[in-house]
């Protein structure tokens, strides 16, 4: 079991962060929201629709209308150029003439600062650039909500700053709802309106960044401050060191 009795509300036009240690199922949560995974029990509502009760075509319709997702790797189509990647959802889902699509693509790429890189192939992009292109692609159809899967992981400080600014701007300027899954505490806290901290399949605490900073839970404190030892012990569960050492000698002797 990955989640146990989780209840979350994601408000419209707000940045909601879901934080937790690695392996706590944050990405799984996004896949549940997007309808890529089905829960054994429970339900997910997006824009008033129960995601897991929809037929496949209705689900695809819901995704097209309301959801964009930014994957950790960017998930750009490797055989298409930057330009064609951003064009992909437009060409698939709209009947716009190519000239209109061209303008839209340039605007979206301008928003992420990569208009000049439109002829590059995904293999020629750095990790941060790939994520920005993926973001441009995710907003191509102007979805109501964008889900960010670990947007900051493995980025240098500059690209991290760029991504933080982009998420913030999209939310502020376009009023897009953002769901950010991350364990980069400072970056996430700086842009989110509300934070859920999950661990072991449960919501440990939730609240605004301010509230969480003053949390009295030792676990949350350790997580936010990044302490090496605390409620989550430094050592993986084991019998005492002295027993292990002595036991080793005994078994060699016998």
């Amino acid at each position, binding site marked *: 079991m990955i989640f146990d009795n989780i209840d979350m509300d994601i408000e419209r036009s707000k940045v909601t962060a879901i934080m937790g240690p690695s392996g706590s199922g944050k990405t799984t949560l996004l*896949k549940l929201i*997007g309808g*890529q995974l089905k829960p054994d029990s429970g339900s997910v509502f997006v824009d008033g629709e129960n995601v897991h009760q929809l037929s496949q075509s209705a689900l*695809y*319709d819901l*995704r*097209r209308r309301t*959801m*964009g*997702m930014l*994957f*950790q*790797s960017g*998930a*750009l*189509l*490797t055989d298409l150029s930057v330009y064609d990647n951003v064009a*992909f*959802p437009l060409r*698939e*889902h709209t009947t716009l003439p190519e000239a209109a699509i061209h303008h839209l693509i340039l605007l979206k790429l301008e928003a992420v600062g990569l208009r000049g890189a439109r002829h590059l192939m995904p293999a020629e992009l750095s990790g941060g650039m790939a994520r920005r292109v*993926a973001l441009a*692609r995710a907003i191509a159809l102007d979805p109501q909500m964008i889900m960010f899967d670990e947007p900051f992981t493995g980025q240098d400080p500059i690209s991290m700053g760029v991504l933080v600014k982009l998420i913030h701007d999209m939310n502020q300027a376009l009023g897009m709802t953002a769901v950010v899954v991350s364990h980069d505490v400072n970056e996430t806290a700086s842009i989110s309106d509300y934070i859920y901290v999950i661990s072991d399949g449960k919501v440990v605490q939730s609240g605004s960044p301010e509230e969480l900073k003053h949390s009295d839970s030792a676990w949350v404190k350790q997580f936010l401050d990044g302490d090496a030892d605390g409620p989550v012990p430094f050592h993986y569960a084991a019998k005492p060191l002295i027993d292990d050492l002595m036991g080793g000698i005994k078994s060699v002797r016998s």
Partner: protein
Amino acid sequence: MIADKVLNKLQQIGYKTLSRFNRVGRASLFLWQVLLSLPYVIQRPRLLVRQLYYVGVQTLLIILVAGLFVGMVLALQAYIVLVDFGAEESISLMVSLSILRELGPVFTGLLFAGRAGSALTAEIGLMKSTEQLSGMEMMAVNPMKYIIAPRFMAGVIAVPLLTSIFMAIAILGGYFVATEMLGIYEGVFWSQMQNNVDFYDDVINGMIKSLVFGFVVVWIAVFEGHDCMPTSEGLGQATTRTVVHGSLAVLGLDFILTALMFNV
């Protein structure tokens, strides 16, 4: 103790059997979904043409070279056997019948599994592990339609085309050896062939075989790619499985089809 071990072994066997069946079931469902997605491909011939390039044109060279040498070596071997009976004029018959009925479809199927099948599995598996398939789903584009179906259709079309090219080039290879090296008259070579090779029994049956082989090999290849564990290890295993299972399927089906077609 011993009873425990036996029970454990039994459970293991049971588990493996069940997971085999599970896999076959998933593969069948997968095939059904692919077939349902085929109309989409017809609306987008561009996607199909692109995949025909990858699975067809890029396999062409190995097919040409292999076909040429198979035809040439068959002519030599046929000569060695037939010359003892003074029947070396029947070289063309032996070359053409073995190429058309067996070697053409089987060789092409095996080479296709090794060259294009493994590439298909690796490509789709890599797309899965880099989240491209998931990404597409979240963009509300069904990867079954956009990625899998064009590749499947291109493969099913390409294999019979490649097979006919293999057959033609192999017979030309045999013709070259027979006339230039072994001194068979050109007219004898072709007339012997025409008198004994039947269009429906030999050529069409060979093409039907290749259609079946292509269908099965491409099915295995795209399924393995789509079903693989999205890790570098899982990818490697899936690619190997495509080649091994694809080749075995070609050889096994060849036996069945031959038994059915030639009423042995």
